[in-house]
């Protein structure tokens, strides 16, 4: 097993110095850094096997195709899907959810139907549904948030009804860190015959995902938030549903037969992957998944919950800091906070001068921010390479900033 120091050594960027200080990277909910295993896998791909995939009869193309398919199989295993057929590679979570809004939404929704999301949603799981429900004359409704920042299950029970055709909820809030009870909501959705979608952008990097156990029909996530390259995302979908809905993007590789007048679709998952895919991204994702499972989600969870608890405690000791969202036991490795009288942008800029990278803003969840009566928060988010020393540097720097302003 790797020690945490060995893990840290796998991430070359952590040795970068920022304003003369060691980089303390606490912006993992936005995107994570990449281990050298992943960086090397991308280079090796272009050094040794780059080619267009599918139908190529030459050596490189066979090699690239095999690796690209293998990446699908690897991801299927990673989330306990039935096989490659259920794994569509997209650019990111956003594209995965838009694919559903178009292919499933336009297919299944009728005037008067309901789509249900929550008050927590990232814009990527909100705006597509706003648009598609408006287009078809369906309604968009929201499961409420409790005062302590959790999902209100009573509200869920009230809102999910027999008119509900699609339920799509975030698994872990990127703004508050709250982990939502997807399994329970799935049960409600199934009771009412609705499709169940989870936005796993923030959960897949941090916990073992079992799509069967969660009871979801679809599960979306992004490679770049879990050690993989940018430009590669995933949509898991149950095979029987994917077979019955329209494709989203049309073109090369997703067809079986084309005449000038019409087309027949290729088998899964290719039906949903049009044009030349991001092969190096897919292979990078496979290596990232290997890396995560080699370290193990137990170890990752141990590291992260220690940091989250520690940071929560330390931040709570500062009287001028207000933490948003629920107690640590209901949240992932994300802490959003406000500092009396100082704007998050100023905090982030000043933290940056100490080498600390955090995010400041609405975290692509403007309506939730409004609900919390703020425009923006400062957010620190942790991953497997962060340490208590990182948290200490954050806290010290925050104390200096407060002094500067008072």
């Amino acid at each position, binding site marked *: 097993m790797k020690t945490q120091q060995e893990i840290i050594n796998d991430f070359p960027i952590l040795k970068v110095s920022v304003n003369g200080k060691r980089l303390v990277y606490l912006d993992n909910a936005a995107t994570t850094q990449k281990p050298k295993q992943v960086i090397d896998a991308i280079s090796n791909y272009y050094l040794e096997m780059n080619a267009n995939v599918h139908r190529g009869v030459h050596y490189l193309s066979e090699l690239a195709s095999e690796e690209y398919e293998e990446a699908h199989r690897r991801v299927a295993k990673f989330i306990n899907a039935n096989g490659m057929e259920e794994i569509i590679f997209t650019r990111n979570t956003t594209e995965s959810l838009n694919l559903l809004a178009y292919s499933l939404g336009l297919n299944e929704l009728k005037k008067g139907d309901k789509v249900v999301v929550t008050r927590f949603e990232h814009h990527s799981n909100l705006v597509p549904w706003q648009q598609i429900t408006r287009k078809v004359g369906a309604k968009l409704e929201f499961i409420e948030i409790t005062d302590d920042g959790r999902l209100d299950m009573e509200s869920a029970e009230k809102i999910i009804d027999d008119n509900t055709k699609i339920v799509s909820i975030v698994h872990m809030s990127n703004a508050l860190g709250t982990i939502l009870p997807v399994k329970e909501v799935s049960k409600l959705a199934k009771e009412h015959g609705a499709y169940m979608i989870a936005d796993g952008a923030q959960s897949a990097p941090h916990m073992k995902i079992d799509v069967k156990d969660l009871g979801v029909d679809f599960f979306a996530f992004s490679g770049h938030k879990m050690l993989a390259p940018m430009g590669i995302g995933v949509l898991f979908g149950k095979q029987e549903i994917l077979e019955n809905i329209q494709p989203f993007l049309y073109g090369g590789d997703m067809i079986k037969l084309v005449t000038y007048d019409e087309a027949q679709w290729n088998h899964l998952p290719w039906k949903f992957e049009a044009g030349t895919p991001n092969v190096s991204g897919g292979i990078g994702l496979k290596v990232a998944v290997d890396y995560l499972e080699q370290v193990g989600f137990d170890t990752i969870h141990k590291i992260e919950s220690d940091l989250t608890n520690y940071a929560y405690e330390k931040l709570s000791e500062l009287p001028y800091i207000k933490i948003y969202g629920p107690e640590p036991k209901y949240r992932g490795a994300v802490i959003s906070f406000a500092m009396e009288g100082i704007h998050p942008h100023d905090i982030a800029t000043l933290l940056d001068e100490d080498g600390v990278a955090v995010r400041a803003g609405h975290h692509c969840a403007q309506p939730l921010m409004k609900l919390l009566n703020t425009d*923006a928060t400062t957010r620190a988010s942790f991953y497997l390479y962060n340490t208590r020393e990182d948290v200490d540097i954050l806290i010290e720097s925050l104390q200096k900033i407060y002094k500067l*302003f008072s």
Partner: protein
Amino acid sequence: MSSLYRELIIDRYKAPLFKGKLDSPDIFFHDANPLCGDEVSVYVKLDENKNIKEAKFEGSGCAISQASIDLVLEDLQGANISEVLKLDKDYIMELLNIPLTPVRLKCALLGLKVLQAGILVYMKKQENDQE
């Protein structure tokens, strides 16, 4: 501690010299940067030569956006509005005299842009009144 947050900026953020409202201003404009929530409104009274006689702002947001408009209004007392329209980001960078990354430059520019938008609306209205 920080080159970026020179004392002046923090001072002006905490105790701005030009914060407030003006009754019946010649120029009024409000705008916000929805992405970060910075907001600025400006109130300006002109003399007969279209020079700035008196100016105030209201707003909320980060230190840079708020201190910047405060420093701009101080600097432009007596300036002719046609001159104000010519000012650009170089002016702001010189005035603030701190290194600004592209994202934070947007904060710094908000106040000036609101002022300039207000001037344009005012001039348009003057034109229409003359016709």
